[in-house]
């Protein structure tokens, strides 16, 4: 009996925990769940798909996406593009779905500063990891006093500002779109039915796509900045040798 009561209390607290979350965190949870289910189904489909067949439907879209991101990674990162491309694809899918989720009546997760700064911190961790991985801890720390030790504070600030600039850029863009749409809906009332769709096209789809592109490109550029320069070129020949 006592155990059951405990269980009951835990369940209630979980429910109240969910209800106390901010709307953007709630939509983050739902979008993540939906994406996981959809990608599971797609991966099952991919297992059945044989290479000689013509790709169609969602497999065609995925092929286009992964091919595009692989090409972009080869251009910026070079030899080690395989280590980073999966992260970029993950970020790109999540960010794009999150940015256009205003169309489905959700609050975009990226309109919450905690989500975007968290994404920025993930990229920051990866940047530091690749810095240490390619130059060793000593070489990485030496990079902070690059021209001379006087530049240490400037370099440190520049390094720490990276996740905040990444996160706040995304946050500001999506939040401004959300606020402007809310203003339009509250001012125009029923007339918003005519005015809102083109604005949704701009603020949700176009702006969301551009911001996804910017976030991914900046991630790739920052990571490429930590890699040694002779690795940054990629020759198509190497793949045929493999």
């Amino acid at each position, binding site marked *: 009996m006592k155990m059951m009561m405990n269980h009951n209390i835990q369940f209630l607290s979980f429910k109240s925990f969910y209800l106390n979350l901010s709307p953007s965190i709630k939509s983050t949870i739902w979008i993540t769940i939906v994406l996981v289910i959809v990608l599971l189904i797609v991966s099952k489909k991919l297992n059945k798909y044989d290479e000689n067949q013509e790709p169609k439907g969602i497999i065609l879209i995925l092929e286009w996406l992964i091919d595009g991101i692989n090409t972009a990674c080869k251009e910026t990162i070079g030899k080690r593009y395989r280590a980073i491309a999966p992260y970029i694809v993950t970020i790109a899918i999540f960010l794009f779905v999150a940015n256009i989720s205003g169309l489905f009546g959700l609050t975009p997760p990226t309109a919450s500063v905690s989500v975007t700064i968290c994404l920025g911190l993930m990229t920051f961790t990866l940047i530091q990891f690749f810095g240490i991985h390619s130059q060793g801890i000593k070489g990485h720390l030496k990079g902070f006093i690059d021209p001379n030790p006087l530049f240490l504070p400037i370099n440190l600030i520049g390094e720490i500002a990276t996740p905040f600039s990444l996160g706040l850029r995304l946050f500001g863009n999506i939040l401004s779109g959300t606020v402007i749409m809310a203003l339009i809906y509250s001012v125009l009332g029923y007339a918003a039915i005519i005015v809102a769709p083109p604005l949704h096209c701009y603020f949700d789809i176009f702006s969301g796509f*551009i911001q996804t592109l910017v976030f991914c490109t900046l991630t790739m550029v920052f990571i490429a900045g930590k890699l040694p320069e002779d690795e940054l070129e990629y020759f198509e020949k190497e793949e045929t040798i493999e």
Partner: protein
Amino acid sequence: MRTLLTFLAETLEFNSSFVKGLACLGAGLAVGIAGIGPAIGQGFAAGKAAEATGRQPEAMKQIRSVMLLGQAMAETTGIYALLIAFLLIFVAK
């Protein structure tokens, strides 16, 4: 002038609505002044892209994507000012 100042000093109340009003004024100034820089930058990028397209029309696709990316970067400072404005309006009391 002096009478105006004494009039203001006598009638002004430094209460919460005064603070709110100044915060909103600051928000407007922040967005208005900070909007100048990104506007110039984006216009410059668009102009250069138009020039490049005139010189090499076959590279239009690449030029467009590079231009959009550059403009999104240039927008950043304006977005920061917008964030400051939101903070002033919704957080400052």
